[in-house]
Every structure is written in structure tokens, then in C-alpha cells.
């Protein structure tokens, strides 16, 4: 379920760890292709955003360090229901544009004549996927794996540019937090993160670990630091690893089945 979300973005190591500001000449000559956040001016490639310079073969681009979330097609985001219209919901995904989730893009059949607030009410948080970015707004869908209404837990907001760092290479970083806190975590590309643990303390521990990553995203060996932080600050919290939890569930399920057979 979460794997889908995590494969969306992968954390990339930058070869050149230099910071560029708008107007900086980051490459000269015609060998380079200007990518995102850059612009060709005559013979030079200049940076148009504040961020890290990243070279990928001939392509040169800027990895931004700041800025609001700019929606892209295919991104999985977490948003809040802010309005209920006659054929869908308006969702706030913390981007410059409002996004819309029509009834037709929801899972299962929803009767138009029903009270739509019985499905998603004001203030509900949902995980959705962006299927279109048009000038009139963003279209969302719920028809995919892992897209759902979030129940319980807490949501936090972080700088959306740090999301790849929080997830880590193939989800390595987020899995460390999940394993060491026993929390369910869903990271939206728009910087909203949902955490649900056994107790509030579990959730807060996970939250602090995420804030640590956001605050020190340029420190080398961050993975070890996060592990150290989690083991140091775990004040006697009982942590049930996710695999164990699944086993527990399966056992219960088997028990129930046995009982039903009897």
C-alpha cells in the first residue's frame, strides 16, 4: 500500500553539493541541457531557483530547497475536505490551486442524492492521487491502491521539498521510523504526513524524528542519526513491529475462522 507512494519519488544524491541562487551561472558551454529550475542565456546556463545544483549526464537542474507544493500529475497527496459540492468535494492540498474530487472518481458506488457528508465530511483528511492539473484546478482520484480516508492519528505539515529526504532511498528512512515507533505513516507529496501509533507518545516520537530529518536534511549519515535519536528518546514505549502486528492479526483471523468452522 505505502510502497506505491514511496516509489513515486526517490531521494537523489547530488554530485555537486553547491547552492545556487537565482542568476548564478551554473554551467557554461553548449554541452549542458538546462533542466528544471534553470534557463539558458546565451552560452551559459543560469539558475532560476534557490537550491542545489544537480548534474545528471548532460542534464543540469536545480533541486529546490524551499517553496510551496506545485502539483504534478500522478502525485499522491493528503488533503483536507474544505467544501462539499453537488457532485464532489473540494480538497485543500496546500498548493496554490484548489483541487476537486468528483463522486465518479471515488471507490464504490455513491448515490448523488445521498448526503455526501456521510462519505467525506468537512475536516476529514483523505489520501488521493492527482490525475490532472489544468488551468481551472486540480482533479483528484481515489481509485487506486492505498487511497483512502484517514481515520485517527495525527497529521503534520513539513516543507514539501524535504519529502524525498523523509522517504529516503526506496523508503529506507521512513521504514526506520515505522519500525522504531510502530506507527503507520503515510507521506503525501504535498508535505502533509499522517501518523497513527498505539499511543499519542508513539506518534509524537515519530513526529519528532521527522522534524529532525527536515531540520538537518544536509547532514551526512542522517540515517544513523535518526536511528540513534529514536533509540535514545524512546522512553519505555512498547513498540510492536509491524510484522509482528500482522502475525497477530493473522492469528486472530485464523482463530475466528476456526470458531466459525466449529
Amino acid at each position: 500500500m505505502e510502497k506505491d507512494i514511496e516509489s513515486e519519488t526517490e531521494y537523489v544524491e547530488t554530485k555537486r553539493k553547491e547552492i545556487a541562487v537565482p542568476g548564478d551561472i551554473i554551467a557554461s558551454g553548449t554541452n549542458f541541457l538546462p533542466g528544471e529550475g534553470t534557463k539558458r542565456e546565451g552560452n551559459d546556463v543560469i539558475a532560476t531557483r534557490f537550491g542545489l545544483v544537480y548534474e545528471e549526464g548532460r542534464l543540469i537542474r536545480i533541486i529546490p530547497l524551499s517553496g510551496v507544493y506545485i502539483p504534478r500529475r500522478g502525485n499522491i497527496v493528503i488533503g483536507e475536505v474544505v467544501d462539499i459540492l453537488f457532485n464532489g468535494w473540494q480538497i485543500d492540498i496546500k498548493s496554490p490551486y484548489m483541487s476537486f474530487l468528483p463522486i465518479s472518481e471515488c471507490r464504490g458506488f455513491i448515490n448523488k442524492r445521498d448526503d455526501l457528508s456521510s462519505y467525506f465530511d468537512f475536516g476529514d483528511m483523505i489520501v488521493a492521487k492527482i490525475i490532472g492539473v489544468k488551468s481551472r484546478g486540480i482533479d483528484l482520484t481515489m481509485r487506486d491502491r492505498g487511497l483512502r480516508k484517514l481515520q485517527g492519528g495525527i497529521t503534520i505539515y513539513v516543507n514539501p521539498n524535504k519529502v524525498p529526504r523523509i522517504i529516503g532511498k526506496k523508503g529506507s528512512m521512513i521504514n526506520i521510523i515505522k519500525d522504531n515507533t510502530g506507527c503507520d505513516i503515510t507521506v503525501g507529496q504535498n508535505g502533509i504526513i499522517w501518523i497513527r501509533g498505539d499511543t499519542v507518545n508513539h506518534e509524537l516520537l515519530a513526529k519528532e524524528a521527522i522534524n529532525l530529518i527536515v531540520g538537518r536534511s544536509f547532514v551526512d549519515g542522517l540515517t544513523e542519526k535518526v536511528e540513534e535519536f529514536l533509540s535514545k528518546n524512546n522512553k519505555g514505549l512498547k513498540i510492536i513491529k509491524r510484522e509482528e502486528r500482522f502475525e497477530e492479526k493473522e492469528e486472530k483471523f485464523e482463530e475466528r475462522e476456526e470458531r466459525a468452522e466449529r
Partner: protein
Amino acid sequence: MTYTKRFDGRAFDEMRKIEAKVGVVPNADGSAFFSFGDTKAIAAVYGPRTLHPQHLKNPQKGVLRCYYDMISFSVTERKKPGPSRRSSEISFVTSQALSEVVQLNNFPNSVIDVFITIIQADASTRCAGINAASMALAHAGIPMTGLVSAVSVGNIGGNITVDMIKEEEDYEEDGEKYATDTPMAFLPDGRISLLQLDGKTSPEMLKKAIEAGRKACVKITDIQKKTLKSLEAEK
């Protein structure tokens, strides 16, 4: 021509001590502090975000909206808070000076709000405001072709005076105002995006003033860039 030595002992082409900082407003998407001596400006950038009122929306490109405001304790005589004729004019020229570098066509139907607050004023507040705002815009991750830098250049009795203080702006001889103040802003390619004039000057003197301003702005741009680059290294 009796003004041969400046009140604070600077050389005529010397600016006051410049201080710059980035990330001073934690809740903003980008923010910066910039000061020329006792003139201190804070700029906070929010957005791109949805534009209200909606009738200002432009479906072809985004809107850059600037608010310039002087805090009531920024000057010796208490300034009445709230917008005034002067502050709305400065807000307008600031957004004109900055919109040339900001790539607004990336954000149709949305707005980038820039709030410039002068916390202490000692002449050339609009220049300090533009410098702070340009850094704050870069810090907010907004695509720009470069940084804008601004400086005010004066002409006191034929002396080109870079970065005037309030005393110089009000310099009088024989009960007559003697100083001319020319705030100006330069784009990275050397074009001028702001040029105002308060007082009297000749075309030759104006040309000289612009050249002096251009030189000073190169230094300012360096400071702006250095400050932005040191941001991540601090952590």
C-alpha cells in the same frame, strides 16, 4: 559647495554597514532581513497561493502583490499606522521593480504576496525593502532570473552621495533644500527597474548618479547571494 565631508564621515561612494539575514519569519514561505545602517527592513513572502479578491486573477500569469509598511515606532515622530498615500506608492513601485525578474507565467491565477515592514527608518527605506524582498523571494523558492538590488544615490551640491542618511536628505543651505535623492534598482543584466527622483538635478549629474548606483548595487548583489548561500551551511 560647502558639503565636502559627510555627516557620518563616510567616503562619498561608500555605503553604510550592510547586514542581511535569511529566514527571519518562520511562518512565511520565504523571508529576509536587510539593513543599511539604521534603516532596517524585513520582507516576508507568502505563496504562490490562491488570489483573493478573485477579480484580480490573471489566467495568463501570476500576480506579484507587495505591501510596504513603516511600523509606527520606526521614525522619531510616531507614524500613524496603516496604509498611506506614500506607502501605497512605494508598494506599487516595489512590485514593478521586482516583477521583471520573477517568472510569473509559471503561476497563472495565483498570487505571490510580499510584505515589507520597515522596523527602523533612516532614509532609503524603499531600497532596503526591495533588497530584502528580492532575497525573500529567492528564499521562498520562486523562479527568478536573478536578484534585484537597489540603492539611493544623492546629489548634494554637485557631490554624488551614495546611500544617503536622513540628515543628508534634509540638508539645507541658506534655508533652501539642497539635496536630491534618487532611489534606483538594477536588474541582474544591468537594466534599471526603479528610478525615482526627489529634488533637482541635471542630466549629466543623473548619469553620474546612475553609474555610482550601479557600482554600489554590484556590491549589494554579492552580499545578497552570500547570505542566501550561507543559509544551508549554518545548519
